[in-house]
């Protein structure tokens, strides 16, 4: 059974890229996508994914806030942040907020899968 993933990113382009990496691996199934934090929080409730990939900088509600919201309602939620390089402070803030791990753009399929698998195993 592949793990169910919700992809959150404001760029359709980034979502497509992540979706391809996950789908091609056979280990993950993308059950939904969200383009901002608000949408992510709502979709999490209905989809109850095993894992969320969460962009940090997004309109309306950013990824850190969304991560907090999700964790408030679902204690064991696994959220992995996606960030472009150079914003280490934001990534650190996310992890302090409860995100399990992070991946950095530009990312390779190999790296993404390694991080996500590690998160699923822990």
């Amino acid at each position: 059974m592949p793990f169910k993933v919700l992809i959150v990113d404001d760029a359709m382009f980034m979502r497509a890229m992540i979706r391809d990496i996950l789908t091609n691996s056979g280990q993950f199934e993308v059950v939904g996508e969200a383009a901002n934090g608000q949408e992510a929080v709502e979709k999490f409730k209905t989809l109850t994914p095993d894992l969320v990939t969460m962009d940090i900088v997004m309109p309306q509600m950013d990824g850190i806030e969304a991560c907090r919201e999700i964790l408030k309602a679902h204690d064991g939620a696994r959220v992995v942040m996606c960030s472009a390089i150079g914003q280490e402070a934001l990534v650190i803030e996310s992890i302090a907020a409860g995100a399990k791990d992070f991946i950095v753009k530009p990312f390779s399929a190999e790296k993404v899968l390694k991080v996500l698998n590690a998160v699923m195993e822990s």
Partner: protein
Amino acid sequence: MDLQKYLEMYLSDGREHVAALREALEGGSAPGAEEVRELFRHAHSLKGMAASMNFEATSRLAHSLETILGVWRDGADPAPPAIEASLRAVDMLDDLMDVVQAEMKDEGLSSRVDEVIIQLEAALPEEASAEKPAGPAPGTGETPPAATEPSDASQEPDKETAKLTVTIEPGSPLPAARLLVVAQHLEAEFGPCPMAPSLAEVQQRALRSVVFRVPAGPGIKEAARALRELPEVEETELEMPGAPSPAPEKPGVVQSVRIRAAALDDLLAGSSELLYHLNRLEAELSPAEQQEHHFWLERHRALLNRHFDHILSIRLLPFDILGQRLARTVRELSSRTGKPLKFEMTGADQRLDRTLLERLLDPLTHLIRNAADHGIESPSARKSAGKPEEGTIALTVQREGEALLVSIGDDGRGLDENAIREAAVKRELLTDAQSKKLPRAKILELITLPAFSTRREVTDISGRGVGLDVVRAAVEALGGYLEMDSVQGQGTLFTLVVPSAVTLTSILVFGWDRWTRYGLPTSQVRRIYALAAHPLVRVGPRLCIQHDNGLIPVLGFRPRPVGREGFALSLDTPSGERALLVSRVFQSERVVILPWGAPLDMVPYWIGGALLSTGEISYIMDSRALLRIDPAEEENVLETV
């Protein structure tokens, strides 16, 4: 990953971000707090997208824009010049989108991009130019738990706590964040584990290694091992309470030790001696005994060979390490001189001795700087000469026999041979007659003389030359030499020819008498001709040896007269096949060539020495170097200067 299929999405998403940036910035008035947050978001998203598509220029520019927007977001007032610079960046981003649409890559505009980035950086308030340390995360009351603990974890562990050192891989983009993930893992299992240095310090100083204090209990060893499985965790090292000091022989404990390069040389020399003893031992045995012990002898030899390879590989690093630095130098020069420059690199996967690598940095940097400053013309001059506006600096690394050839070429204005000739006469380095007689290569070589190099006005005429004496000295200090070639109007090529240092090399041993042994790398020796069967003939001023397919010019290098019972070694040299006359040819064998120390290293054609299996020392020569010192090749006027 096939990136092409994302291109359309990249462009539509990307253009949206650019349009949004433009709209907010062109508003006329300074953007408000909410607007700034939006602007930051667009720049940040664009950066991540461009990086994912390998659009380096776009991502770099978006990063600079993001930096300045981040400063505004954190409270600085957007000043009009900064808004102006940001708008220019947006214009540039638009252009980059066009280029991507047309060519599916964002190269070719990098010098303009650099220009815009410099303007953005100039518009940055001074204290903001450096990356901000983490500190308490902005905008929240929360702080990362591990970061705020007192940083006393490096103190001696008491009875209950163990010291756990965690090291992150060098390639990790955000090591501090990575360490925080590790801290969270530990906390989930053992409760809060203080770390030292603090997270803020880790971030500020870009550290990769910290020490956690972990309650020593059951499962800690298992946990330390499990951490190693996490992404980007390179190593963990556990020190239990009461343990006197980490035992170095524990696997995975010691990651690296610094050793002197000379210690490796000693190891190599020692191994070389071992090989000699093995050969002697074998020679002492009767054929029957050799047969009997064949298995162990061969095993011994195979192990020794592996041992050599190990020692050598410790010293070797890919040239690319240097290449990346030089590429950065070219980028910096491009933005400083305002000349668009392209850097091409071939052979960067060659592995080199690390000391050699270090010592090549300065001369190569120097040559690149010369190429950018003096070689490459201004864009307008290039355009009128019918060249592309963007100048090219090319770095090539290749091996030729035992030598390493590192070239820096440019497609600039080239050297003006006649100007150098005139200048040399004016400086009284040469007489008029000498200057006319001197071959082209020697004339070009003149610009590496200190008298030439230090004079600006000559440099400007010749198109090159600042500090070339320094480059030449650096190369010669490595036991090599500098070659140069240039076509006026088309460019210049400098080649550093250096011995590629210690390796296990097959050599042919020969000599001019019974006692002294000389060697040449067998890769350079094409054939051996017995002079009894291949007589010497005089062709014009030159002596040649005759063989079935024609004539091979004989090198004038001849320490002893060679009679008819001697041999001619036909050598591959850069000028073609040349014959070296020798009296005796002994054996060929694999040896370690060790560089001479002073003062023997001053003999230009000896690249080193080797201990032969017979116990004798052999002086190793190099065909390129032989060619250079051969009086028959060219009149060496330089020495009379």
